[in-house]
């Protein structure tokens, strides 16, 4: 059916952000990697940072992130994005440097690099996509896979006694003095998406003011590897992930408090 045009004066209240390039993504339908991308782009636009941004893509489904943003980007070896970001930030301290990492990338192979970037109070921002599995390689167990969750490498469900316990990354990093802003948000509904955006904005403000390390963990869906429709996946995130990965602020440096956004 056709919906008639509005006849009164109208204005675009939402448009695709400039900081996204005009490229089609390779993400699966419904994958909230796309939402995270959009939020970053919106914040970059709002803060006018496009010309100062340098992104570090990691290895995972977001490996091609460098294609999707209209600002400078590099692509890191698996897990090493915080180290690359450190290298960039140290020579260009006035740029806003961002890593974009999955949970396999950041919390598994890249654990040492992110812990040390946080401990150093490295003035960078990590956007951390927690989708409880290795999306890119076909859905293996990640450090974030929930107890009992079936993946292609925990075919009988994650048995914590044998496969270990999931890691709550935001909680972990919050223990480090160099970390200024460490929070967890979710991408499963409009309200939480708005909160996620606010957190990304705060993280960039933290970096802009030189307050040190910031990380925004984002609970995200992977319908393909979860074997669900996007709808089901959203529901699963809400029902299974959030109880385990409590949303909230895990570390907020006092001087972050007066960032008003």
């Amino acid at each position, binding site marked *: 059916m056709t919906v008639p045009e509005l006849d009164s004066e109208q204005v675009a*209240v939402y448009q695709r952000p400039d900081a996204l390039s005009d490229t089609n993504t390779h*993400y699966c339908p419904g994958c909230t990697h796309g939402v995270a991308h959009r939020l970053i782009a919106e914040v970059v636009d709002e803060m006018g940072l496009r010309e100062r941004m340098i992104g570090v893509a990691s290895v995972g489904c977001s490996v091609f992130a460098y294609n999707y943003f209209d600002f400078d980007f590099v692509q890191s070896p698996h897990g090493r994005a915080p180290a690359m970001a450190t290298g960039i930030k140290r020579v260009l301290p006035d740029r806003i440097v961002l890593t974009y990492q999955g949970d396999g990338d950041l919390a598994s192979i890249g654990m040492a690099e992110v812990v040390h970037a946080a401990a150093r109070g490295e003035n960078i921002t990590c956007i951390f996509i927690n989708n409880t599995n290795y999306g890119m390689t076909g859905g293996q167990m990640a450090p974030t896979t929930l107890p009992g969750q079936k993946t292609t490498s925990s075919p009988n469900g994650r048995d914590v006694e044998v496969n270990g316990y999931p890691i709550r990354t935001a909680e972990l990093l919050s223990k480090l003095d160099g970390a200024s802003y460490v929070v967890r948000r979710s991408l499963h509904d409009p309200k939480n998406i708005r909160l996620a955006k606010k957190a990304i904005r705060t993280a960039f403000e933290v970096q802009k003011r030189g307050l040190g390390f910031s990380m925004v963990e984002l609970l995200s869906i992977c319908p393909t590897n979860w074997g669900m429709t996007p709808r089901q996946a959203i529901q699963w995130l809400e029902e299974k992930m959030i109880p385990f990965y409590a949303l909230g602020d895990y570390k907020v440096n006092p001087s972050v408090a007066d960032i008003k956004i």
Partner: protein
Amino acid sequence: MPPKGRIEVNEDLCKGCELCVMNCPQEVIALNMERMTKRGYHPAELAKPGCTGCGICATMCPEAAITVYREVIQKPA
């Protein structure tokens, strides 16, 4: 009376994931099951009147495929 709105879906980008559909408070979006995009997806579209231009669909869309328009309400001076 709620404001009147309208959305435009960029069909090059839409992947028919329905995240907009399931979140529209007015339930006015649906996938068009009769058409396929170039990439082989059924695109989302405004299926009935009643859009308020609230922007929630755009907030959900992973592909940033939605532009939202809203009528300008002249405030009494």
